[in-house]
């Protein structure tokens, strides 16, 4: 395939990854990993002769082999190791995938580095140990930089398991807001005093589990919470923004846009008068921060889209205060 077609194909993959629910660059990486695996097995395997199984030697052997095959120019690459990690620098101007990266960056599409993915794949598959890839932001004036390091790859929150959908490894169903609204309204009609509590606790307990499943992938509580909030956003629930995050005093302020609960409350007239409605949002955030700071946290909603505000505003604080 010529260079232009290859880049266009990658752009198409990124575009698809952006549209697919729970998509993102992960999908590009999954697709590319599969492509590398097939290409390696078909054309490279027998010629691949690393000096040892450590990451740096694997990476060097990869460059040499690819260079000999005419698939890249080894002079464009600089490798150095830090412990078990390998820092990689690529001269982007001569890179085959330059058009893909610069266009994806410009269009705001999920972006990953095909070259560095190669390093990750070879080290993971030939070294026998899971490696993760972290890439620095694409900046035209500077060489591309990234690091591969030992680490579990984060599993997809939403994925297919045969005929079933799974969320966080558990079977899940997709429900429209209309259908969910009817469910909520039924609770409101028959047990109005329970609605708030039901919504709060259902998301609270499920969010505790979510946090547990992903916390090992991240270095600190903020990263974990950011990831989880991003997942919620990609699930189409609500877009969160961390406005304040005070580790020391265990206080946080979160803004949220496009609350589905506010929409449901207003459309189904689930209260006698306009009021703050996002009990499920409160439950979710209280759970995340309880886990993040190892403190029994509560969440109060100070602003709400159901009230006509521009966003919902949540305050997190320790219950004991």
């Amino acid at each position, binding site marked *: 395939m010529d260079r232009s077609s290859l880049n266009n194909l990658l752009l198409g993959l990124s575009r698809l990854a952006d549209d697919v629910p729970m998509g993102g660059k992960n999908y590009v990486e999954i697709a590319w990993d599969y492509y590398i695996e097939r290409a390696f097995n078909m054309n490279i395997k027998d010629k691949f002769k690393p000096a040892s199984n450590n990451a740096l030697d694997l990476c060097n052997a990869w460059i040499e082999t690819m260079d000999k095959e005419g698939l890249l120019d080894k002079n464009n690459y600089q490798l150095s190791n830090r412990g078990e990690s390998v820092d990689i620098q690529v001269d982007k101007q001569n890179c085959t995938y330059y058009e893909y990266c610069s266009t994806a960056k410009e269009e705001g599409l999920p972006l990953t580095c095909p070259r560095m993915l190669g390093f990750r794949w070879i080290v993971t598959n030939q070294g026998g140990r899971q490696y993760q890839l972290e890439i620095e932001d694409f900046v035209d004036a500077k060489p591309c930089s990234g690091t591969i390091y030992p680490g579990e790859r984060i599993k997809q929150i939403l994925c297919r398991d045969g005929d079933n959908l799974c969320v966080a490894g558990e079977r899940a169903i997709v429900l429209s807001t209309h259908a969910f609204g009817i469910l909520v309204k039924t609770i409101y009609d028959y047990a*109005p*005093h*329970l609605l*708030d*509590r039901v919504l*709060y606790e259902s998301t609270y307990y499920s969010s505790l589990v979510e946090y547990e499943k992903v916390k090992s992938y991240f270095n600190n509580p903020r990263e974990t919470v950011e990831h989880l909030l991003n997942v919620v956003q990609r699930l189409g629930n609500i877009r969160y923004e961390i406005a304040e995050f005070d580790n020391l005093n265990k206080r946080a302020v979160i803004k949220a846009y496009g609350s589905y609960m506010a929409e449901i409350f207003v459309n189904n007239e689930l209260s*006698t*008068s*306009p*009021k*703050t409605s996002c009990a499920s949002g409160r439950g979710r955030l209280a759970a995340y921060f309880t886990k993040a700071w190892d403190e029994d946290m*509560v969440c*109060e909603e*100070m602003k709400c889209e159901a*009230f006509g505000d521009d966003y919902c505003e949540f*305050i997190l*604080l320790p*219950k004991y*205060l």
Partner: protein
Amino acid sequence: MRNEKMGFFGIHGIDCMIGTGLSYGSQIMIKGTSGVGKSVLASQFVKETLACRDNCIYICCDQSPGEMRESLKQYGVHPLPYEERGRLVFVDAYSLEPTGKNYFSSEDGLEKYLALEKEVIDHMVNGSSTRIVVDSLSTLFLGRDNQEIMEFHRYRLKLLKRAGIIAMDLMVDEVMEESMFKLSAHLYDVIINMYYAGSTERPIRALHMGKMKSGKFDSSQLFYTIDPNIGLIIMQNLAS
């Protein structure tokens, strides 16, 4: 769609009884024996107040503000963020010694109480309505003569009505003379009478809305229980 904002209790069964809601400037009396659940009702009222974006002033006569804060947390609202934003103010009329700026001693005159109440109201956040809860007003009246009480009562409710404030006054049955209740009843728009019905061996909590002005009201008896996390749960008539 209603343009005028109306106030509710935040307790479904009671809100059903008041239909379209209370206009701002309404006065509510919650009357009942000790332990029947007046303060629980008040806590839910506060929760509803804050959820509606109204300001709330809570006058603590029968327990300290600290105890009231814990009570609110128990029923699902943490008061601190609202206090920090000036939307919720506790006035300590319970402690023996001054505990801060918003303090009232039982030894002080009712004129001083009025001045303090006015000062707190004036300092509330602008642009929002205010509700005020006195828990309990009968404690405030202890040891004062009837004429002073009536004068104060009339004057205060007039001021609050003029200011468009929803006032909820809790009254403990054992504290005030029945005659005083009767005399002050006409000053209120809504009276909720809470009591124990049923037998002495198996008492059951009940409430009755005694009066409502310029609007329909349901005068039937409602039974309720108190859930430690939710508060008052009105047992609705299953036939309705």
